[in-house]
């Protein structure tokens, strides 16, 4: 049996048994799925949730990496509006490199698709607004000749991407 503060040990990892510790009653074990008590089921659920929490924490990017990713996405929009293909390719390479660094650093790859309706809504909303900002940037640059439009659009998208990435941390 192992106990480890800050990790997952609600169950004995070396065996297939759940361990129920009750003060004054000692350790009780069972491995029979059909005779599982409410307390054992609760322990199993707690262990599963603890494992998920550890996994989510591990998958979480450090703040500087969130900021770097958001800046890179914003830069993609800005250089895309400026029609600078080489820089756009460079931005893609940077984003890919940051994702690869995070994968190596954490040893995990988080789910690409969002979990839950609210997260889907957030991602869809971000894509729609980002496309809207891009379209506005194209209009302002091509039709009105505003040279600051690409930078402004890129900055807005970077800011939104950062906020969205922060909401994913909670």
């Amino acid at each position, binding site marked *: 049996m192992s106990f480890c503060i800050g990790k997952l040990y609600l169950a004995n*990892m070396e065996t297939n048994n759940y361990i129920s510790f009750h003060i004054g009653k000692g350790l009780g074990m069972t491995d029979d799925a059909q005779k599982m008590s409410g307390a054992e*089921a*609760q322990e199993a659920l707690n262990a*599963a949730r603890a*494992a998920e929490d550890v*996994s989510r924490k591990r998958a979480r990017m450090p703040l500087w990496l969130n900021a770097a990713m958001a800046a890179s996405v914003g830069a993609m929009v800005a250089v895309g509006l400026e029609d600078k293909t080489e820089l756009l390719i460079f931005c893609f390479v940077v984003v890919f490199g940051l994702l690869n660094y995070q994968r190596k650093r954490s040893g995990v790859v988080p789910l690409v698709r969002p979990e839950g309706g609210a997260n889907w809504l957030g991602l869809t909303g971000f894509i729609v607004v980002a496309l809207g900002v891009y379209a506005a940037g194209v209009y302002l640059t091509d039709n009105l000749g505003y040279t600051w439009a690409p930078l402004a659009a890129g900055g807005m998208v970077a800011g939104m991407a950062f906020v969205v990435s922060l909401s994913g941390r909670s």
Partner: protein
Amino acid sequence: MAALDPVIHAPNRLQICAFLSPLEEAEFQVLRDDLGVSDSVLSKHVKQLEDAGYIEQLKRKAGGRQRTWLALTPEGRKALRAHVAALEVIVAAAKGVKAV
């Protein structure tokens, strides 16, 4: 009512599946360290989950060394959800009994 899955029922296998559930994939060493088990124990349980079609192993080379990555399959995700639902039913039933 959803039934408990005998493959996932063992605590370590439940934790392996739960750990992998918010992820596309995780490195074998990471899972071993975070769950606090030996290589052999983890390998044994991964093999059982793989045989059931709940997990797949992906071998990749990194820095000249082969690394094993683990991922839950769609069947594994479905089985985990059903198992957790069954556990929740047991807990709810036990609470209901206590309340009476």
